[in-house]
């Protein structure tokens, strides 16, 4: 009996995976087509717009060199095939390959976003559970305050506040940047925590965390507020109270009830809300990056759009979209695995 149940779950997982795979292809084609169309609909030629005093002949030669004089359908085909092959062309502005540049900026954003997410979930869980546990007004207000802070206060304002307090008043943290240029910069993956650990340099690690502290705290408030909000909504659900009463009637200890049964039940909701909002987190990262002089993808892409940096926009945006989709899908799968009642409709009949 148990074997068939596991088998059933395994089959459901396979169907889920296949579904996600097909969706990934669909997202790839639709997103690439939309990006390509948008890039080409914008009036003006990115090559001559880069120049203060363009020379038409030279502009035509550069366009030919870049393949921009070919028919659009060929260009689109070239775009998607070279994207898949990882050959993303050069930035029109800096002349560096887009791959190298993304290799430089992407780890910065991911390091920031993942740490912020991690801290945010912990903060959100902590606030929501404290409010529920210690029924006092103080904790309840803390949770409410966190929600208000994370969802309504603009990040640039918050970031500025953090700088004034953490950097200017206390002097504990630098106001921005990723690293201190008086130390040699750890080389390798581009994830500075990992690289400084790999180099075995604790001083580098300390500097890395010092630089991460303010932007991570600033960016973590948004996921913290989300998690806290979702949990509080669940806590006020009458069905949860029925369940609580039932569990208590079974004679389970309070901590066991909360940390094992309820957390597991709510885990799926938390994972889903965090996963589906990862895109918004990256959106917030743009502002965070700007305030904290953080050399990340958000700022890079926004500048590329403003500068009409063709290949950066085409490949960088597509990469981010696919990544967001992958993260949302992973969150879905995790939610699916953590709570078997989250099922796809096609599956619900059995």
């Amino acid at each position, binding site marked *: 009996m148990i074997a068939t149940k596991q088998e059933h779950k395994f089959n459901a997982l396979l169907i889920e995976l296949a579904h996600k795979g097909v969706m990934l292809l669909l997202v790839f084609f639709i997103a690439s087509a939309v990006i390509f169309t948008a890039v080409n609909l*914008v*009036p*003006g*030629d990115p090559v*001559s*717009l*880069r*120049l*203060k*005093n*363009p*020379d*038409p002949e*030279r*502009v035509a*030669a*550069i366009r030919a*060199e*870049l393949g921009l004089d070919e028919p659009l359908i060929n260009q689109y085909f070239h775009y998607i095939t070279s994207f898949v092959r990882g050959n993303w062309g*050069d930035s029109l*502005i*800096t*002349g*560096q390959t887009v791959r190298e*540049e993304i290799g*430089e*900026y992407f780890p910065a954003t991911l390091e920031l976003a993942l740490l912020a997410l991690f801290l945010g979930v912990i903060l959100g869980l902590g606030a929501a559970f404290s409010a529920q546990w210690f029924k006092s007004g103080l904790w309840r207000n803390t949770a409410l305050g966190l929600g208000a802070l994370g969802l309504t206060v603009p990040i*640039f*304002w918050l970031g*500025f*506040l953090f*700088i*004034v307090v953490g*950097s*200017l*008043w206390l*002097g504990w943290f*630098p*106001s*921005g*940047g*990723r*690293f201190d*240029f*008086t130390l040699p*910069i750890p080389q390798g993956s581009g994830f500075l925590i990992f690289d400084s650990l790999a180099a075995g340099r604790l001083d580098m690690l300390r500097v890395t965390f010092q630089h991460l502290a303010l932007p991570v705290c600033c960016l973590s408030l948004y996921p913290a507020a989300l998690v806290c909000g979702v949990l509080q909504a669940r806590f006020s659900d009458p069905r949860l109270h029925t369940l609580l009463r039932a569990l208590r009637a079974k004679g389970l200890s309070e901590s066991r009830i909360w940390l094992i049964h309820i957390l597991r039940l709510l885990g799926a909701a938390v994972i889903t809300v965090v996963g589906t909002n990862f895109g918004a987190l990256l959106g917030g990262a743009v502002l965070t990056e*700007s*305030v*904290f*002089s953080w*050399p990340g993808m958000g*700022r*890079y892409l926004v*500048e590329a759009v*403003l*500068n*009409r940096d063709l290949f950066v926009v085409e490949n960088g945006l597509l990469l981010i979209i696919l990544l967001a989709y992958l993260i949302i899908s992973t969150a879905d799968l995790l939610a699916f695995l953590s709570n078997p009642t989250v099922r796809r409709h096609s599956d619900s009949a059995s």
Partner: protein
Amino acid sequence: MSVIIAAASQIFMLTGCSRIDESGKTPDTFVFARGSDAQKLDPADIDDGESVNTLAQICEGLVRFKSGTLDIQPWLARSYTISKDGLTYTFELREGVRFHDGTPLNAETALFTFERQLDTTHPAHFLKASFQYWKNLFQEIKTVRATGPMTIEFKLSEPNASILYSLATFPAWLISPLAFESHGEAIVRRPIGTGPYRFVDWKPNQAIILEKNQDYWGSEAGFERLVMRTIPDNTVRLLELKAGKIHALDGLQPAELAELFDNKQFTIHAQPGMNVGYMAFSNYAARLRSPAIRHAIAMAIDRKAIVDLALDGFAIVAEYPIPPGFLGEPDNSQPPIVHDPDAARKILNEHPDLLKRPIELHTFTAPRPYFPDPLKIASLIRNDLENVNLKVEIITRDFKSHLVAARRGNFELALLGWSGDNGDPDNFLATFFASWAAVEDSATNISFYKNKAMDNLLIAGRQQTDINQRQKTYEQALVIWARDLPLIPLIHTEQIVVTRSEVTGFQLQRTANLFFGPVGWQSL
């Protein structure tokens, strides 16, 4: 957003600005911060200030502008001679100069910089590089060759009086040929010149790190290291200066400087830049083609108010479409445009067709050196024009989209500007008024103004070598401009750099280049 942040900074700064490193010692590292990063570090293929100002520490030219002036001074060349017919320029190179990679400076190594721009088959004539300045400023150079071990000679196809000035600008700064041989196209990110600082590392969007060139032929640089940081947010950049973590910055808006005025810890360096912000009439806008109407519109605009309200006084009214003090500026004190709304109203009342629909004034969002706040300037102009009974619709776009419309002449009125390159009037007047600069999609003459007499004067001015003759020629060109008024010059903005007061030896340049080589430190 910046207003809110600035307000917050006022509140929080009161108690916050005491902690500064006051040990009195000269720091090892001089840190300069700006709002954006350099784009490329290839002198032949850049036009943004951040790239130029980075290279200004690393590379040098045969000649340069004497600090703070537009006078030419021999630099990597010990001396130069110009032939009588103005067609041959000969430079005698300085002995004992080495590039940062050890390559000695001689005729052969100096040629590389020019040959790669001149010769389209040269291996360092990169296919994706624009070489736009070579086409604009150096177009008369026909050949360049070594005539001795330390002598190079430029032959011109026809005389061009501004070529010597152009040779002082960044596209003509020398880079090492050996660097190209060993790094190939990567030299656009690892410049190797002869300057007081040498390139060490570049962390994009964070910092460019330079160190002292121990073998520098001139006076030794003041610091062991020079770091040029990118801090995009203006308020954060200012906070870093106050916290003593950076020693100098640029890119602040005039309004943001107010709190620094009475602070003895900081020195504000400001001087009118070599730029002009203007409003153009498109020649394609038929109802604004009459010079009388254009003059009336010009008279309606209160440019002094723009200086005071949009730039907090950090600019001067532009009387002519060339910066003040330029060759060609007339001596007489009668300005060609005066503010007289009553006279303007009288003229405009005779043209009721102008009122049928609002006049489109095109502007853009992001600040440029010549217009730190283009939206505010546009709304001040709208007020002035509404004051003379015209209706104005402001059309705002991002800068690049604005540029697309401007380079097609696709507007009625448009705000734009120009930052000068070589200090020569040709660089402004031919840019604005030459018919050959009115090519759709690449026009710098966005008015699409075409006038044979103007063209002839511009060609003559370029070919004349006698300075008095050129003065007359450009004066005549300005008379034609003032008659037809294809554009109204509005302001010359000031370049603003703030340094800590301990910083010595810093001087603003007319070209807006920042040179940190002579900068030192003197405790207060």
